């Protein structure tokens, strides 16, 4: 009886302590849980930035800076250190291509850090936000890409600022310059930040419902 009581208490302690850990991210543990938590913190920051740049809330440079810092401090080596070789156990959404293309993955993580620093520094450059945030009518609009009758020729891909922007080719040239981003309209930097997230998710994340 005494043994049963001890076991019952031990079990209840175990359940009490372990349950919240197990529930988080569907049972993630160790480094997988750490990086999923890290991604969640960036997701929360992106949500607040989205509300600002979509125009759902009033523009707030300080809120932009705070969110940008959350991303900056989660990116680069902080992020890649949480992807040790082969850490694919469930519920990880990472794809094995990460380790097959480590340099590319590492570059995207570092670029995320540089762009988010740039967004922090560009937060006061609000002027373009009200004129079509996320580049509407400029880089992403229809005029530059689709309106031209020569669109199907060399021009089509050449100024593909909306897309991959010769994704890897142009990346190395741009990533060493947070000062460059700081000179840009904040909404444009936010778009580049979003594109960087998408590039990584598109290639290295297993999509689930």
């Amino acid at each position, binding site marked *: 009886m005494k043994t049963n009581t001890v076991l019952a208490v031990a079990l209840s302690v175990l359940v009490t302590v372990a349950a919240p850990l197990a529930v988080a991210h569907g049972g993630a543990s160790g480094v997988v849980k750490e990086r999923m938590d890290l991604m969640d913190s960036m997701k929360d920051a992106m949500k607040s930035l989205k509300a600002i740049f979509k125009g759902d809330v009033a523009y707030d440079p300080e809120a932009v800076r705070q969110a940008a810092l959350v991303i900056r401090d989660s990116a680069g080596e902080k992020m890649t250190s949480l992807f040790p070789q082969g850490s694919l156990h469930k519920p990880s959404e990472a794809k094995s291509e990460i380790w097959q293309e480590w340099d590319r993955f590492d570059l995207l993580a570092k670029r995320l850090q540089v762009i988010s620093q740039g967004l922090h520094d560009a937060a006061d450059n609000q002027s373009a936000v009200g004129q079509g945030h996320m580049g509407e009518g400029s880089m992403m609009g229809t005029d530059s890409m689709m309106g031209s009758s020569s*669109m199907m020729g060399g021009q089509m891909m050449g100024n*593909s600022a909306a*897309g991959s922007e010769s994704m890897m080719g142009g990346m190395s040239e741009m990533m060493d310059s947070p000062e460059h981003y700081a000179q840009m309209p904040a909404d444009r930097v936010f778009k580049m930040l979003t594109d960087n997230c998408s590039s990584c998710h598109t290639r290295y994340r297993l*999509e689930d419902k």
Partner: protein
Amino acid sequence: MKRLLIGSTLLGVLLISGWSTFQLSANVGTIKLESQAGDVARGAYLARVSGCIACHTRIEEGGRPLAGGPPLTTPFGTFHAPNLTTDKAQGIGSWSLDDFARALRQGVSPQGQPYYPAFPYSFYSKLSDQDIADLWAAFQTVPAVTEAGAEHQLGFPYNVREGLTLWQGLFFKPQSAIALRSDDERYNRGAYLVESASHCGACHTPRNLLGGLDDDRALQGAENLLDGSSVPAISAGALQDAGWTSSDLAYALKTGLKPDGDVFGGAMGEVVRDGTAFMTPQDRDAIAYFLLNRE
């Protein structure tokens, strides 16, 4: 794997049993558009929103426009979208407008060979004559690239192209009607984009073991794709249950950002990057409006 084996077996049985009962020549009908004048700018826009550029260009590798696409991995093997430039040997430079229309509308090459449904002609069959003429006019402006596209890598029985005629007979429903509303232009524009040009159902509608679209479950999502990923339902009910608003949907199609701050990945990341991000705001709004109000 089990699903693949069952599919292979079924296709093999169909091939053998159908050989004598189906005429194994492609479904070539008469299409005459030669006199239709095309608008290059409109066609270029359509090429973007219809995914021609996304699928037929190695964008991430800095490939030449429409010179051939990256590998498309499916449960049936790996497909490579071919060179569609004006090169006469490797591209479509020797085609006529009617050849082009037949490919899009009927899924048949100028030589009469049926195309694999990785090429979404089931959706393009609903394009109008003017759409096709515009696309054709735009394609004529693409510089020739003398580079052969990579061959498809398909195992048996999927590499038996004759089986595709049978497949088309069973599963291809050309020019099925799009349900329109007589007094709602935004809805109709969204319907046209979702159900034809932008072929959302190619990924978001489940397929049977042989790759035929399950129209009874249109836009209800697909599971267990080859890499273990799945595609969410985008039926009106599913989107509403997930809390999507029209404004959020349109914004996500423009930026890739979801309401919770996550950013699209996988094929949808590419769809936004190479397609919907280039749409007019009105078209993105129309898609969102249609999806959330679809009957």
